[in-house]
């Protein structure tokens, strides 16, 4: 049986549960795998990542979050704007941020156990910091979630050959430490062979496009799709009540 963890997206877990067992097989994201969320700009890939990260926190699963587009302060605000309030979880040392979204002037915050600053232009440093974060967070419990939002920004600032290697290493380390990884990527933002390599390195592929969520690949299931909406509460699948 494939163990899945709740996604935090209303409707998604029902959509991904198989109906052959006696209702015992809960849907969600397969545990201890890597999932790619991709699609064009503005379809809700980041919102998916917020909900995934936040839901883990409410289930006592800590989260390691690499943010490349929003500085930590903006990330907190953005998540709060769809009702996902992080303060409690950062107080409990559940939410660990690696911030690569900083401008050249750097961060006003000092690095700490829960906050590391880095730069999208320095993938080696990113890898060092997320690896350290994964090790630390894995000491807190048997499972955790790990998000990269987004890979596109890192790819745009560096040689894709190098980034593919960094991504492979990252996925291996998160999985080894017991984590479940989720990576967002804007379709078409790198060349075709890089895009295929990225898809080959993850376990599950979810596409968001034209109002539809498509599971292109996922452990234990075939391809399927369903319409979704972006509401003030985030992404909601059309099968949810």
């Amino acid at each position: 049986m494939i163990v899945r963890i709740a996604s935090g997206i209303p409707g998604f877990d029902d959509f991904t549960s198989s109906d052959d067992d006696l209702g015992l097989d809960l849907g969600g994201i397969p545990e201890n795998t890597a999932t790619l969320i991709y699609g064009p700009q503005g379809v809700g890939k980041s919102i998916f990542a917020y909900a995934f990260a936040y839901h883990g926190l409410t289930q006592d699963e800590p989260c390691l979050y690499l943010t490349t587009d929003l500085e930590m302060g903006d990330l907190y605000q953005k998540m709060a704007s769809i009702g996902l309030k992080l303060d409690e979880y950062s107080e409990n040392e559940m939410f660990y941020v690696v911030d690569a979204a900083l401008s050249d002037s750097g961060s006003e915050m000092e690095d700490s156990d829960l906050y590391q600053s880095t730069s999208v232009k320095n993938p080696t440093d990113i890898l060092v910091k997320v690896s350290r974060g994964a090790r630390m967070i894995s000491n807190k419990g048997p499972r955790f979630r790990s998000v990269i939002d987004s890979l596109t920004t890192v790819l745009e600032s560096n040689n894709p050959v190098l980034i593919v290697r960094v991504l492979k290493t990252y996925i291996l380390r998160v999985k080894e430490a017991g984590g479940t990884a989720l990576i967002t990527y804007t379709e078409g933002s790198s060349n075709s062979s890089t895009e295929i390599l990225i898809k080959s390195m993850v376990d599950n592929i979810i596409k968001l496009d034209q109002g539809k969520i498509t599971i292109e690949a996922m452990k234990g299931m075939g391809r399927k799709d369903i319409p979704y909406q972006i509401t003030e509460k985030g992404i909601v699948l059309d099968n949810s009540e």
Partner: protein
Amino acid sequence: MSRLESGIPGFDEIFSSVSDFDLTGFPGNTSTLIIGPPKVGKSIFCYQFAYHGLSIDEPCLYITADEGMKQLQQNMIDFNWFLQSAMDKEMLYVIDSISSLSGASIETTNTYNLSKINDPTDLMVKVGLGTRFVFKKSEEFRSVFDSLTTPFAFNPEPMVVRFLKTYIRRLKEAGATIIFTCTEGIVSENTEKILKSIANNVIMMDGDYITFRSIEGPIGTAKYHITDKGIIVDKGEVL
């Protein structure tokens, strides 16, 4: 030519409509490239091929280059395929060329060796050790390399091709039936051509159809499905 049971239901009968020769079964002591886009079941083919061999006492040299040993075992357990007894009987020799990247502290055993993804020379040394080990068990054995995708991501293409040529030559001399996988579209067109020409047989998987170009000439194709028991191939058609 000797024939093997691939272990993939329906696959061995893909040429059953060619009545002139009996082409049932997987051609022994050949090399086969399995190529296709991501997530179409290339690795599952490998698991099934190796696991079936082990279940009928054909030893296997397994090189895992995308997923570490722990993940490999987990992926197989999803299909209820367990490797432990084959390892206890020393029928399976695994070379793990990727776990050194994951930061895990792992110890080698009699039948489990480590290598590095960016060191084909070291990998060849380990292949030599593994081949001798498996060869002592049986002069007919299987060899799986899954996959070339990560080696290609970490090394120059010609270097991986050189490694592959040597690997195939040595393993064939030792009597192995070799399968190796590569994701379609990640290397240059020229390298992809070379890969297809190095292999005796080519299996293409696209998510719907599996197409087999055999060393013996015919090309067969069939629809396939991935189930919780692995890949199942429908009745084939010869092109």
